[in-house]
């Protein structure tokens, strides 16, 4: 192993170890959770404004599309459950 690589590896550990203990700490996860919530709040506020604008023009917003996708996914899952139930009933009959 060359000298420069040994140096890099040693440096990485010297910096990496404290970073690891920081990102594994309780405080880090509290900050991440809070940041995520903050981002969601901001995104939600922006989406609500843009949604109103788009609805004024009779256009669907991203949230509408998302809702439709979720409803479709729920319906797909329900259909899948029913087809599996049918398959099971047919299996029991045979």
């Amino acid at each position, binding site marked *: 192993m060359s000298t420069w690589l040994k140096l890099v590896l040693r440096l990485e550990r010297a910096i990496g170890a404290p970073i690891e203990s920081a990102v594994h700490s309780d405080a880090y996860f509290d900050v991440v*959770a809070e940041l995520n919530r903050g981002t969601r709040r901001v995104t939600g506020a922006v989406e609500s404004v843009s949604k109103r604008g788009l609805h004024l023009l009779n256009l669907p917003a991203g949230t509408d599309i998302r809702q439709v996708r979720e409803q479709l996914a729920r319906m797909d899952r329900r259909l899948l459950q029913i087809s599996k139930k049918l398959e099971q009933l047919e299996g029991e009959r045979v």
Partner: protein
Amino acid sequence: MALQLSPADLLASVNRDVERSYLRARNGLRYVRGSNRPTLGATPKDVVWRRDKVQLWRYRRDEPARFAQPLLIVTSLVSRSYILDLMPGSSAVEFLRDHGFDVFMLDWGIPDELDADNSLETYVDEYLPRAVAAVRRQTGCAELTMAGYCLGGVLSVLYANGHDDAAVRNLVLMATPVDFEQMGPMVAALREGRLDPEEMIDETGNVPADVLYSGFFMLAPTTIVAQRATLLENLWNDEFVRGFQAMAQWTRDQVPFAGAAFREVVELFVRRNALMDGSLHVGGREIDFTRSGATVLNAMAAKDTVVPRAAAEPIAALVGRPERRHELLLPGGHVTFGTGRSAFRHTLPSLAEWMAAHSDERDADGHQVVGAR
């Protein structure tokens, strides 16, 4: 002390450096361009059964398997199965196939909106029994060896003990967590309620792959620097670069976690640490982990940071009948079961040896010769 190099040695050294510089430049360009990537999961195989997105693969072999009991590998729900078949010459599947096992692999596929309701029961009571039946149909063999990797190990424990007709002769648990109090900081944050599982689930109803990748990345965020530096040092070495590219691709290639199963994992495994009770309520019944008659091997990796040894160790006291419990501590980390120097020097030879000792051999006519259990 002055260095004494003969002119011939000096010339050879200069030649080597020039050649390596050329190779570094060539491989560096290829790496940056993203070309010349290795083909992953390339061992020839056939899809022998499928349901929804789940597929059962049987790896092709030129001659009949030496061992009568087929080997079914059950992979984790949160990572791609090709870690166990990374690339030719560096593939656990290829290694085990070449050591005489008839290898099958259960690939869970990539969950989407349609799979958001998949719970532990879906995997344990719907997919696994059908996949095992398909293995038995394909091979005509009554019993099999089931090898579960990571979370796939937990599913294997639940299946083997939760079904009277499980037909699992040997249960190999590779880096399988049972004590979730010993798992990493992200799991601790989920347990203590600092991370809300509902906030991790997106509009598809699943935990996105990015979230899982971040969780693994945060275990050691700066190691990427050391990895890149090591790559730079070995850029002249084609084999090293191929291996690096393959691993880098697998590491980034996480799959979403089905929402319903994730909620159960958080509630049962993480918050209640219920696996440590030695039984679990799944699909309307209590599954006792000592119910199966299978011989159990708990294979742990000494330097595993994803599933630390302490999280896997209690298997020895919880799973299988006491007289049929075995343990193997292997060098290397979490991926030592699939790739790396240690995999082919220690891990896979040890696993193959154990499985061979607990399987029946076939004679020259292909008849089963009953061996030791």
